[in-house]
């Protein structure tokens, strides 16, 4: 187990470095000067030169890169051009909101997706047909459109849940849950549909295996065959497919935050993008990449743990 983690880390760390470098180049290799892009066409040459000097954009690129990298390694990701605060403070303040939604969406995806998939696999032909059509539909529905519809129906028309805003967990767990319920649901819909499809396929595949027949012939009950043996064997492809969904869930959350006026990473990034706040953009890229890589690592570890052949090896 520990060796799996270490082996994956050996891959993940250079990958993170590569992506960081790529992101750095993306921002700093703009045609023209970054300062010109930041300040816009209206700025005078002196203003541009001053900002160039202040941000170090006038120094050689390799020089800038090393300074930036050594700062990042020390936890200093730079200062926001808009708020003049450390970018990590800005990102840190918004991260809990986004992560709340993402975590809730992942949970929904796994629980509902697997349940629907198993039902679809064992529930008989007619239920399966109907389920398949519903799932295909939800795989094509954009999360933000679904989010708007949910707000309209459940919040504005029925008044069941708050339409907008975020309540921190520490203030009131109940209202926290209510504030992220609809965002989670809109983000998770695609994930649920995809994972349900994968689960169905994996279950159908496993249920035709020889060992299911031998265990059945030995008198193991259908319930145990489905929920203990088949689901356990199907769990590896299921976990992998959840891992594939993670990037999508994160991206959807960033967009859906706008629908629910959640002040998360999405709002921060959007304002940084519109305000050309490159240090903040870079920091967000690094943070989210790290989160995705961590999630991938978790999937790898889970798979290694789920697979007895890999576990002992």
């Amino acid at each position: 187990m520990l060796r799996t983690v270490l082996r994956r880390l050996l891959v993940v760390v250079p990958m993170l470095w590569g992506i960081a470098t790529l992101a750095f180049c993306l921002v700093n290799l703009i045609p023209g000067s970054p300062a010109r892009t930041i300040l816009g066409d209206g700025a005078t040459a002196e203003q541009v030169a001053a900002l160039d000097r202040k941000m170090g954009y006038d120094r050689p690129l390799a020089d800038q890169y090393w300074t930036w990298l050594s700062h990042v390694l020390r936890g200093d990701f730079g200062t926001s051009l808009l708020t003049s605060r450390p970018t990590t403070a800005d990102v840190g303040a918004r991260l809990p909101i986004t992560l709340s939604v993402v975590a809730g969406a992942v949970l929904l995806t796994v629980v509902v997706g697997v349940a629907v998939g198993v039902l679809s696999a064992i529930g008989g032909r007619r239920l399966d047909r109907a389920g398949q059509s519903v799932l295909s539909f939800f795989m094509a529905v954009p999360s933000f459109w679904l989010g708007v519809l949910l707000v309209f129906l459940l919040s504005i028309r029925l008044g069941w849940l708050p339409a907008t805003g975020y309540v921190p967990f520490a203030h009131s767990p109940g209202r926290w849950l209510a504030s992220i319920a609809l965002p989670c649901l809109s983000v998770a819909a695609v994930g649920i549909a995809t994972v349900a499809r994968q689960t169905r396929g994996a279950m159908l595949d496993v249920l035709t295996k020889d060992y299911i027949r031998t265990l059945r012939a030995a008198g193991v009950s259908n319930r145990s065959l489905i929920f203990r043996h088949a689901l356990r064997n199907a769990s590896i492809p299921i976990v992998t497919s959840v891992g594939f969904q993670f990037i999508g869930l994160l991206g959807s959350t960033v967009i859906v935050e706008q629908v629910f006026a959640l002040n998360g990473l999405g709002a921060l990034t959007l304002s940084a993008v519109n305000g050309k706040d490159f240090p903040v953009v870079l920091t967000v890229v690094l943070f989210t990449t790290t989160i995705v890589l961590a999630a991938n690592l978790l999937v790898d570890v889970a798979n290694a743990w789920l697979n007895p052949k890999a576990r002992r090896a």
Partner: protein
Amino acid sequence: MSVGVNTETVAAAGPGRHRRPGDKGTGRARGVLRRPGTWLSLAWITVVVLGSLFASVLAPHDPLDQDLRSIYQGPSGTYWLGTDSLGRDVLSRLMHGGALSLLGSGEAVLVALLIGIPFGLLAGYRGGWADAVISRIAEALMALPVIIILLAVVAVYGRGFAVSMGALGVIFSAAIIRLVRATTAAVRSELYVDAARVSGLRAPRIVVRHVLPNVIAPVLIQSSLTLGTALLIQSGLGFLGLGPQPPAPNWGAGIAEAATAINQDAWLMVPTGGVLVLTVLAFNFLGDALRDAAPAGRGAAATGRFFGHRALPADSDAAEPADDGVLLRVRGLVVSFPEDGGGDQPVVDGVGFDVRPGETVGLVGESGCGKTVTALSVLGLVPGAGHVAEGRILFDGADLARMPEKRLAAYRGKRIGYIAQEPMTALDPCFTIGSQLVEPLRRHRGLDRARARARAVELLGLVGIPRPEQICRAYPHQLSGGMAQRAAIALALTGEPDLLIADEPTTALDVTVQAEILDLLRSLQAELGMAMILVTHDLGVVADICDRAVVMYAGQVVEEGTVDQIFTAALHPYTRALLRSTPEREATAGPLPAIEGTVPLPRDWPAGCRFAARCAYATEACSAAPVPMLVRDPAPGGPRAARCIRADSWKAVDHERAAGAV
């Protein structure tokens, strides 16, 4: 919205089995074309593409034309899909925005293909360091938080879709690279096998002539799915206001506008979102249809009934008396499978035999004769959509064929045990041997966990496994084939059954291990006094441990008798042919004469004797009418019978021929 790059579904269609001439796939392709969804999807995509590309000509209104007196109008003759907050025609805006959306998504896919195909081919064909580097980069691309990266790209290069969709294409190329690489590597390894086809060909020509054709299908499938994903992502950017400058329409921005006006006019959400959903749906559907049509596709997963057997309706016919000491009496058993073109095809056709307590009966025949299906039908475990269509399976007087699944389930493991052919796949790879034994032990014997555990260790010792405590904690993959088969036998014994059905229990094992397992089965039977049905193609195995043999051919029993009778005085030419192809246990010198020809498929079964086409003694009479089972001796211990009209005369033909040859 799915932003992750979904390769795993397509990958299944990619590597491994590549297209070869004569592959049958056309039937499935036709089936896909017959689906209405395929046509609907194609039609919808055509309408959207034409409507968008020729929007300037076809759109009923100018998309920017405001008419503040007619805002938020529902659908009407003038405005088919209504008007928005500025009184602009929604349909015209969708058509004009569509061009942008489709071109952007097309751009992303095109970039992905232009990068993905060459690099994938290179990685898959070259292997080595090129593969290592390219695969690593692809892996890194797949770990990128797509939306965030695209936002960063917009921050640097400004709004609009041209650059961001190109960047999306670069990210998506990772999926194409992986797909093409896997397919190429699979094709290449096959090409090495038949090197003759490629000798003298240079690498580029091999790639163009042999590899590319196989890559096209999976890439096409992936492209269709990717188009849908790109469309969703692009709309997301548009929704965030990162598309082109506002008055110009795009689909995502349209949804954002509709969202802000939802309290005034909820209808606006329908056309703006609907066109997107339907288009993505169509691309996804086409991708799925292509995958199902591809010859390398995984095929429709079997959605057979999992919940056990379909019981025959109960009838009042008095069952044959069961108190004559027979444990299992099978009569007139017909097992059918549904055919592709509708209708049922029997594969077991009127089989009958008896098994007495403590007796070992061999069910013998080549593969394709229906012996395994016969054996499985006793357990109510006929695979897939097959089912018992007629006949009786009387076990201890109760008709298993007419028993509801719930009651039949109670017989499995407890009264009737089962051993499968392939020991390495017969045990659940995710559970230890011990826990797989404990589960049925607790169920059958009502033991608590600790007792069941102890009994499991005992059982493993009984089947001759050394250090049973240790094996109890092992996973199946840690066992050798012989050990796994012993463990599988232990599993079959957990309920102390009266009847053990062993389906080719030694076929998959090494020769030395085969003898051990047969010895084990023999001694277990002596010790536990259970009856056994041994399914095998090997008469040597029958001679080793069976009391009686039932020979099957093409879904029927063709001969029945004691092992002595079968070996010394076969009545059916098929039995005789089987005997000839069976090695003497000790000396096996030279190749054995295989029986010429093959077992006919069920749909090719002739009306007369089913063995006639392969029989050296066939006469016209043989094919004239179905041959009945001719009983020689209805012995109480098991009848002597054969299904051959020349049972008495064919040996004489042999003598004549031998004489003639001299």
